[in-house]
């Protein structure tokens, strides 16, 4: 059970959060201009790697805010947490 440091509320139990999949996949600004393949790339393709992964999380049973997390999926170590719109750490 992770201990997640919500950027708005502080450290809370994982039970209060919901994972929201891969981070930094921006919704295309002009979807109608895209080919089927380009749209499918946005719609369906997600990474699932062993190692450092960038994820979206939502403090759904708390402040309801979305934020980003860098997690090492091999040992579940949370490397960084940062707000939506902020640049991922190098």
């Amino acid at each position, binding site marked *: 059970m992770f*201990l997640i440091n919500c950027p708005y509320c502080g450290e809370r*139990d994982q039970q209060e959060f919901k994972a929201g999949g891969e981070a930094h996949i921006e919704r*295309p600004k002009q*979807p*109608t201009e895209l080919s*089927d393949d380009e*749209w499918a790339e946005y719609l369906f393709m997600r990474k699932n790697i062993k190692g450092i992964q960038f994820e979206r999380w939502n403090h759904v049973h708390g402040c309801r805010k979305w934020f980003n997390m860098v997690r090492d999926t091999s040992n579940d170590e949370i490397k960084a947490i940062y707000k*939506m719109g902020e640049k991922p750490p190098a």
Partner: protein
Amino acid sequence: MTKNLRVKSSEYIDETNRISFKFNGKTYHGFKGDTLASALLANDVHLVGRSFKYHRPRGIMTSGSEEPNAIVQVNPGTNRTEPNVRATEVEIYEGLEASSQNCWPSVEFDIGGINNFLSPFFPAGFYYKTFMWPASFWEKYEFFIRHSAGLGKSPTSNDPDIYDHRNIHCDVLVVGAGISGILAAKNAAKNNFKTLLVDEKNELGGSTIFENNKFNKIDNKTPSEWLKKEIEELKNIKNLEIKTRTSVAAYHQYNYLLARENLTDHLEAKDKTNKIRQRLLKIRAKKVILATGALERPLIFNNNDRPGIMLSSAIKKYSEFYGVACGSKNVFFTNNDSAYESALSLYNKGINVEAIIDIREQSESKIVKKVKEAGIKVYWSHTIVDTAGYKRLNGISIMKLSNDGTSVTGSKISISCDCLGVAGGWTPAVHLYTQSGSKLKFDEEKQIFLPNQNTSQQISVGSCGGDFKIDEIIKNLNQKLKDNLNIKETDLDNIKVEIDQENSKRNIWLLPSDKPLGKTKPFVDYQNDATAKDIKLALREGFRSIEHVKRYTTTGMGTDQGKLGNMHALGIIADTAGVKMGELGTTTFRPPYTPLTFGTIVGRNVGKFFDIFRRTPINDWHVENKAEFENVGQWKRAWYYPINGETMHQAVQRESKAARESAGILDASTLGKIDIQGSDASEFLNRVYTNAWSKLAVGKCRYGLMLNEDGMVYDDGVTTRLGENHYIMTTTTGGAANVLGKLEDYLQTEWPELDVYLTSVTDHYATASLCGPNSKNILKKIIPDLDLSDENFPHMSFKEAHIGNIQCRIMRISFTGEHSYEINVQASYGKDLWEKCIEAGKEFNITPYGTETMHLLRAEKGFIIVGQDTDGTMTPIDLQMDWIVSKKKYDFIGKRSLYRSDTMREDRKQLVGLLTDDPNIVLEEGAQIVSELNQSPVEMLGHVTSSYFSPNLKKSIALAVVRGGKDMMGKKLFVPMENKNINVTVANPVFYDEKNERLNA
């Protein structure tokens, strides 16, 4: 006649407090402080159970939670009965009853014992191999297997006890209150760390508390005396909470641990009532100090499982702590010095020790000399090749061990004995450590797995960290505390320790016999009856991974998870396969460390708290008026209101007719309601719904369809513009939370530039939906001053009004096709509003209707229910709802997906109406639809999604999704059922009032 083997009073046993208890129906006596195991041993009872596969007689083997054999059913036949309890952990109390498990008809005479003599036919994987063919016979095999297996009986009546959960946050959690744990907790707390110390036993001090030998001294006291003084000092330390009878079950990531605190299991029945029995502690600790100690290993030799064969350390504990002799003719079998400590303990209490069999060639330590001086015979370089005695050990045979330890030589010596203590060295209890995700490494010299890299804020101290001598323990503990807690001084700095302990050991995982292995029974896993033979067989059959060998032989898969024998299993595999133990790795230790009751896991979430439900503010009225309820998400919704013994069908037919002919009323409070405000609210709705919202006037309502980004219908509902920058959105009952979550997601992550605020107000309002040609007349009676003319208050519009002092929001919208109003008031006025409507509607025969009638009425109109007529694969085009998809809007959620090659296929499943040729046949929802009856395999075209008998149309109607259905209007299809084929015709899904004339009726 039972013997009394109580040898000497012990300070932990209160001999003034005599307790009687029953075991297998017979009454025995023990004292306050005894465990069931110690009390039985004091009565010379060793035989307590039968093994799982061969039903071999088994006795008490240990003195702790690692016990594999002495598994009993506590208080059988009562509502507090519990199976699979370790007799070594049950504290006795007046009136306790316990019985053996896994034996029939009794532990003394067990029919299953015949398996023991058939055992050549029960090798590893026997069940897998034998019961596979023919497949149809499995049911018969299963019957016999289930009857001959089984560990105990679960209670059949309700659990009378209360269970609880508690969250604990601490700076330092210390697991285990042996010498290391106590010193760690004391120093952590003294340095202002909020500390919690837990131990599974009821007494602090671990094994050091009865360490009275004269060889080891701490500050010139025996370890026992010294530790008692330390424990006494704990009482005055702030920041320290101590919990005994508390077993840590699981150690999860981020230092999240679950522990079971036992509060009433040791009390008499009369003292158990109305108290919390067990409490699950959910502990989040900044630092965890594991001081879980070590478990003594047995030795693996032929017939090493007879009642009377015990761990050497257990014999010592029974003697020193409980004042009980486990036998009157004791022998020890060892590969290290531990057995000599036990032998000396017995000797000092005047208990007879016949001999010590030592597989080592020699040892010169002080304690060995002392044992020799006591006149106890030691057989060096000898091993036990066999044991005798069926229900109780009565003798052993030993032979000289060859130099390489793989065979025996010379002549056999027989020694008569009734108790054998085995000492195979010590295995650090690293179970919790590995559960946390931390990794072990194998120490070739000590032949043990030790903590290696820590992944959380944790340290392992004492013997679970690999330190076995008191001087090492204190020195290393001191350093680890300073490093890990960042403290400069501890009260361990100046402790003076004198010790004389030797660690010399000769490790042989499987000891040889004079018989070939195939003719012997060297048990590795006592509970599951896995022998060294089985492990070797698995290797011969090609299993290599330790995890596979474990499953094939069931080694380590009992309720004890193989706490005693797992190391030997690994050792035998490594030796046989010729690999190093370190390369082999270990099997995974899974939580819980010791079994938990279901009660502890669920805590207070039982009965009506098992699954949370929601009730509307009008619920009491539905109950008073005998409504039947159905679950919709978490909601309890009125389903139908039967009168005079009506069936559901009769009630629904009556309700449906009444709603169309005069007036009906529905509790619609469960619909999700989201308050949307902000200067970009209109633009936001434009982006989330398929249709256009910018031109919706204030005071008007509009139906909207929401898609997922993949173009599939996600939710629907009516949204009303309350003000320039203020809307109220309704969602489906089940979808409310998800819709809010999805909208928040877009607002926060994709469109943060939009000025929009969302608030869930579902619970804030109660909603009565008034429908039918007389709904207008009823509303007029309640709110006489509101102009209800079509000009002032047309369909799809909104008014704010007052009923007396109650403010209400009224939407003229319809889910039934009838003239209809949805009246919203503050939740607390819900029942009042409802009763006013019922009162005013009496003269119009107002009829309350439930969800079933609502479904029927909307199906007559061909209105979809998201989640019933859609299943996450339906686009609005598939639903024939093209009219609601804006062609002009540049973008909305899911728009691009409507132009993907797949979503544009003509032969997708599409929503259609279905009429049965025989109007009295009602199709089954979910029934398959085909066009050819004699095809093989038959092509499934789709299925029925909604189906009812319409009392208003006097015929059966259905909605269905059919491949290419849009172009099949009028086509004859079939719905094949078990006994008949039903002929159907594809029809327009709007069955009733196609021109919507009734909306303004």
